[in-house]
């Protein structure tokens, strides 16, 4: 059996599109037939759960019992990939907690695949966060996500400053989430369904829906670009190397 993979999606600020990225990841693994479960730490509300109710559980990541729920089940859970949407401001402390329970140690030994998606916000505070998480992270798979979905203006940053932080994490890779038309984004929000369901004109229970063809087209195009980024950083190889090689064998 492939070793379990844990993906943390976090940011130090709210409103940078963390949950959106988590949703694209869940859709991506779904499209690759990789069983996935998700934890939403926006306890007790849970935005992620609204979009993916069947595979999402809302947890309080600071409580020991919930930590057990997540990490003690890694080996036994049916899902190979665990996506954790970390609430704003909790990324550093979550990573610290993971160090404390020895999780990062197991990741280093290769018993668990561990990746962090760090969603960057538009302010310099985000960059300081990179420096801080770099300290804890060691050589985990680290992805810096520039999220343009709502057209945030990142490049007010001084590139030199940005690079100096960026280089502190060995092997960190950049991912760019392109802009999505506002109305298309809003309509998916209103529909409260996964992006793939919206594209396929389906409701929350798989029933036929009646979304605008234009908006579905925009979402399809956008999601294709996002997945293209995930393909580029070889995300499937990372979380499910065995399955991928099987696929290659079957394909001859």
């Amino acid at each position, binding site marked *: 059996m492939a070793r379990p993979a844990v993906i943390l999606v976090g940011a130090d600020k709210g409103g940078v599109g963390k949950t959106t990225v988590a949703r694209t990841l869940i859709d991506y693994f779904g499209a690759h037939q990789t069983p996935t479960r998700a934890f939403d730490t926006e306890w007790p509300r849970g935005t992620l759960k609204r979009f993916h109710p069947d595979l999402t559980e809302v947890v309080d990541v600071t409580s020991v019992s919930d930590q057990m729920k997540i990490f003690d089940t890694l080996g036994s859970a049916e899902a190979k990939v665990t996506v954790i949407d970390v609430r704003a401001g909790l990324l550093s402390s979550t990573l610290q907690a993971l160090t404390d329970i020895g999780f990062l140690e197991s990741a280093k030994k290769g018993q668990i695949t561990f990746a962090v998606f760090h969603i960057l916000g538009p302010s310099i505070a985000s960059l300081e966060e990179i420096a801080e998480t770099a300290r804890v992270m060691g050589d985990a798979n680290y992805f810096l996500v520039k999220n343009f979905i709502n057209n945030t203006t990142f490049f007010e940053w001084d590139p030199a400053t940005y690079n100096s932080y960026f280089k502190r994490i060995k092997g960190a890779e950049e991912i760019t989430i392109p802009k999505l038309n506002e109305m298309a984004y809003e309509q998916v929000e209103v529909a409260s369904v996964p992006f793939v369901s919206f594209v396929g004109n389906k409701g929350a229970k798989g029933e036929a829906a009646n979304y605008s*063809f234009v908006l579905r*087209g925009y979402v399809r195009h956008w999601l294709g670009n996002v997945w293209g980024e995930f393909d580029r950083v070889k995300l499937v190889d990372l979380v499910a190397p065995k399955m991928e090689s099987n696929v290659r064998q079957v394909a001859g």
Partner: protein
Amino acid sequence: MSLRSSITIVASPRPRVGKTLLARLLANFHLQQDRSVAAFDLNAGERTLAQFLPEKTTVATIRDINGQMALFDRLVADEDTTKVIDLGHDSFELFFSVTHQIGFVEEARRRSVAVAILFIVTPDHTSIEAYRSLRARFARAALAPVHNEILGPAQHRDKYPLVGGGPGLVRLPVLAPGLRRYIETPPFSFAESNMAAANIPLAAHIELQRWLRRIYLEFRELDLRILLADLQASIRLNS
């Protein structure tokens, strides 16, 4: 697969090359074939098509997302209506960029609707490039160069290569001098009933009909070529 209807886009990145006239002729051709027809006028502010075909024309804009939804959502719905789009030169880029992004041609094909682009050829570099780009982006649309003969001899024809297995060149012949004033004054309609009722001298009427017949012959051939290409494609798929 059999086609239920077609969506034809009359296009050129240049102004004043005869797009609206071609769209009018095409809409009338389909009406004459007893098809249900909807025309869309995408010319900023001019509304020429709407003046000539008021009952069939929707004035549309794609500048904002609401306009795009109003237009494209209607274009893919109601598969049994034949649609003609008079695409103004200033909407050319945006229209095809949206069309490409949202996968419009593929969606239409999925609904058994053919998409054709009638591209009026001119010798300028912009148009040649635009044509080349359409060929590359819309493999599943029938792209037909149109030679509007009033624009002069087409020595630049080789710059507009035909798509293999696709439609051929469509010719829009010149109307005899002196007749243009009849057809260019709204609300003139090419429908036979209108032409008979309008105060057009008999000789002019006959000449107009002769001209129309030549054009309709071109359109009929275009229709057949699109059907044939579709048939060939489905044979390839099934084998």
